[in-house]
């Protein structure tokens, strides 16, 4: 009964949320919404056990692509966002050929290197990427109205509703994937790749699948960002941003679906309330670095493990058996 009520209640809170906030806080809320999508897609990538340092650059690919489609070819913005996501996914497929010949360290360094190459290409080629200054005056979402409510998307509240809806749908899809046999196969690839291969799993194909899907959602996140802030440049997607994503994921804990989201929300709130209010905002990288190290050393399973301790549930990986509903095994 409580569970049934929980979702509508959460939705209500999320809808009401921006109205109690200041303008700048509403803007932060938009960024937070987008970041939730990025970090949740990052978790899908880590399901197969590989940690990429190129995820934020892939997000940038979605941002650049979507901005260029709307700018150069006049594509309707929502469509260009989708195309941006598809482009990011396609770039990921291309990158997977070199990258998935590597594992562990080499994958990490390889993903970092490919990300750097992409960023350098943006920097080097003024046409079409705008060089170091990047792209400006990116088209915003076209306004529209449904009866009583006018959506003007330069306003953070409107954009928050739009982005929130998109992100909610994406999270639902990510959740469906993870709790399906597909998700189980990802876990299998992670925990014992050789045994998985002996079960007929084409490791390369499945790693590529996770990487591609994750990259598509990250690209969509980038597109959502680009059309809101209206200007992007190569440094919007540098290693510092990647460290933020890593920190959210690790602080939250990558063992569960909600862990990274939790990490993202908690650290963003911490950042806004504690750091900004106390005037430590420019110490943010330092504090994030310290938090990152601290959580690896002292909280290896992330915040989620604290939550689970509180709720008193054991860490577990969800399986498809629960989705079918009835267990065939008594």
């Amino acid at each position, binding site marked *: 009964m409580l569970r049934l009520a929980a979702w509508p209640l959460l939705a209500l809170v999320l809808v009401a949320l921006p109205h109690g906030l200041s303008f700048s806080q509403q803007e932060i809320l938009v960024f937070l919404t987008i970041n939730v999508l990025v970090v949740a897609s990052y978790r899908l990538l880590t399901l197969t056990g590989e940690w990429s340092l190129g995820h934020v650059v892939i997000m940038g690919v979605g941002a650049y692509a979507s901005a260029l489609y709307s700018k150069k070819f006049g594509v309707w913005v929502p469509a260009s966002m989708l195309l941006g996501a598809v482009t990011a996914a396609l770039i990921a497929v291309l990158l997977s050929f070199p990258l998935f010949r590597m594992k562990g360290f080499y994958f990490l360094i390889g993903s970092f290197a490919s990300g750097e190459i992409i960023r350098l290409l943006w920097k080097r080629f003024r046409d079409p990427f705008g060089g170091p200054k990047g792209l400006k005056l990116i088209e915003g979402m076209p306004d529209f109205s449904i009866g009583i409510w006018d959506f003007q998307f330069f306003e953070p509240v409107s954009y928050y509703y739009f982005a929130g809806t998109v992100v909610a749908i994406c999270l639902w*899809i990510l959740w*469906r*994937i993870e709790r*399906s*046999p*597909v998700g*189980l*196969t990802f*876990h*299998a690839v992670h*925990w*014992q790749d*050789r*045994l*998985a*291969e*002996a*079960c*007929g*799993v*084409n*490791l390369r194909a499945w790693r590529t*699948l996770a990487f591609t*899907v994750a990259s598509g959602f990250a690209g969509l996140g980038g597109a959502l960002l680009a059309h809101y802030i209206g200007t992007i440049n190569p440094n919007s997607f540098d290693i510092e941003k990647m460290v933020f994503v890593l920190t959210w994921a690790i602080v939250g804990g990558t063992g569960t679906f909600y862990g990274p989201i939790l990490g993202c929300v908690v650290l963003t709130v911490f950042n806004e309330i504690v750091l900004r209010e106390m005037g430590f905002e420019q110490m943010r990288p330092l504090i994030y670095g310290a938090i990152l190290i601290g959580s690896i050393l002292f909280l290896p399973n992330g915040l989620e493990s604290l939550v689970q301790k509180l709720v008193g549930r054991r860490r577990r*990986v969800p*399986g*498809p*058996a629960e*989705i*079918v509903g009835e*267990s*065939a*095994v*008594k």
Partner: protein
Amino acid sequence: MSALLEVRDLTMRFGGLTAVDGLSFRVEQGSIHGLIGPNGAGKTTTFNMISGFYRPTSGQVLLRGEDISGLKMYEVARRGVVRTFQHSTLFAELTVLENALVGTHMPFRPNVFAAIIGWDREDRRGALARAAEALEFFGLSGYAGARAGDLSHGHQRALGLAVAYASHPDVMLLDEPFTGMNPEETRSMMALMEKLRGQGITILIVEHDMAAIMGLCDTITCMSFGRLLAEGDPEHIRNHPAVIEAYLGGTHHAA
């Protein structure tokens, strides 16, 4: 009976070292075939070449006449030759049922789009039924919800077989299945293999321990230093002078 699996002139060199040297033998359909030899004889290397983990330097692995040497492990698996691993290689973090479900990957291939839309309900049911069947077969039904890493040693070994069995294999390659088992576990494991043979599954066992598979195998191939030493039924192998010599090792010394 006809040869289901055949190894022809198989050779593996690592740098200057020849681990397997021109090995040939045939595994008959529906039999339990043992591959034995002292430590370092090249059994595991041979096993890894058959299962696709290594690409042989030269020679062939024929499955129903088709050359499968050099194929990747998952490609070999998809042709019906499924292997197990030494020790208790399992998805230790997943539940017993989930382990078996991964085993059903080949008959019920997951699809990401179907999974999102929800069009794979039939496949999920089928996979679950097959996984349950595999657990039942190996007497693990009672542990379906347990974490695989928490099982006892004997149950972990059985689960390893169940995962392989869940994929409907024609040939099962077992890598030292009796290692670290007490006599009682060994006996029940032997019974399970007999049961598998009863289902028409061909079994190739690689084992260091001669005693364990004497009573089980129809045919035994004995290797030593990468070469074929002797082949025949257990009685023949037991009394083969070269085999005894290879196993006792220090006979000169004793004399």
